[in-house]
């Protein structure tokens, strides 16, 4: 358990570091994949429990802190992404590269919709819908692209925890 905790804290730190430094340098348009959200997806795959839910909340809050603008919308998006993973992984077999990619895309899409929705509830989003939709799609695309790689990296680092998708038979109602 301690090993998993240390690995996840290190991965969260590395994700914020990469998102704030190297990735924007690689991508001049500033649209960077949401690495923290990928960690939420992995938490959703590994830990479908109260602990997983609070971990998703925590990762979302860290994401909010990193942006330093609002506190809450990224956290809400993370919780939504956590449930997307639980739902989709029970309905569809996703234990392969493209499955994880699509899961990453959908979860990132939902996460951003929640973020935009929450911010727009309280303050005006002056950006045009075209621009907003383009950011949303590109971020979801890049996040989906990186999801399998990060998932395999975590599985490699943390192989002592239970493997992916062991609870496919459990019904969503039990949550």
């Amino acid at each position, binding site marked *: 358990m301690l090993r998993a905790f240390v690995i996840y804290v290190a991965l969260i*730190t590395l994700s*914020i*570091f990469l*998102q*704030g*430094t*190297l990735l*924007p340098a690689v991508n*001049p348009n*500033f*649209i*960077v994949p*949401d690495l923290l959200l990928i960690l939420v997806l992995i938490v959703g795959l590994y830990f479908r*429990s*109260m602990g997983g*839910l609070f971990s998703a*909340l925590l990762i*979302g*809050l*860290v*994401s*909010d*802190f*990193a*942006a*330093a*603008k*609002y*506190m*809450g*919308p*990224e*956290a*809400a998006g993370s*919780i939504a992404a956590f*449930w997307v993973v639980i739902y989709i992984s029970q309905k569809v077999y996703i234990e392969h590269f493209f499955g994880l990619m699509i899961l990453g895309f959908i979860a990132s899409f939902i996460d*951003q919709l929640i*973020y*935009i929705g*929450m*911010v727009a*509830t*309280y*303050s005006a*989003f*002056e*950006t*045009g819908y075209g*621009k*907003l939709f383009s*950011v949303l799609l*590109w*971020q979801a695309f890049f996040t989906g692209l990186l999801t399998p790689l990060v998932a395999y990296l975590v599985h490699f680092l943390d192989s002592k925890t239970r493997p992916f998708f062991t609870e496919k038979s459990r019904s969503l109602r*039990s*949550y």
Partner: protein
Amino acid sequence: MFDFIKAHKLFVTTLLLFALCFRLTALSIKQPELSQIGARGLGKVMAPLEKLRFEIFQTFSFYWRHYFHLVGIVESRDRLFAEKSSLEAECLRLHEFENENKRLRSLLNFPDEPEVRQVAATVIGRNSSNYTRSVTINRGSSDGLKPGNPVFDGNAIVGQVIACSDHAAIVLLLTDNTSAIDALVQEGRAPGVVEGTMGEHLIMRYVNNDYTVRMGDRVISSGLDGIYPKGRLIGSIVKVEEGKTGMFKQIEVDSSVDFARLENVLVLLTAGRKEVDDLEKIN
């Protein structure tokens, strides 16, 4: 009821957490200092890592630029020498204007310009979210920075500090969709508000249709918002649309700062804030 909660505790907890997130968002919009608490803590952890990456990058960059990438350096030197002599003449002329300006101000009993204290900083990180336009700089509260300090690239406005840890600060850029500056079109003196759009261009709103505004006109800060001093460059106008139904023009402004290549900035510690601080004390 209790059995339902017990049977669906994960789902019920999720709903409660969603409600908590909504509440936190509302609170952090009303009280921005709330989101700065977390940013300060995170800054303490991330700033040393970002500085380390910056130092490594700078070392490589230094060796590349000084020992390998020397093509065209002679032409560049000759050009700079020519520019230097013309700038020296310009500087002399401006120095004379400055002295004349001081004399005239004292004759008219104009109050002296407030003393400006500024700190140079280097950009060591960028925004981690695609919905925020911000950069991290290597100066923090130990250097006298505090939220609200304006940040410049030369004379052009970059944005303002929104959160500080001891040795790093987050600067919200002008292009962020929550940024706004009270502005003037330099040529026609048309007042308006320049807002970020998250895109490449800024939008200038509330410019009355009666004012004449042309493409290429420069937009400067008006100094009325209490954050940015008057006369600092925001950008130049690239598109003007007459408001057909409303009272105002729709103006697109191209910022004078290349945000993608921003490396060094200046943070103003005093100017513009003094009057606001004094008023806040009185209130």
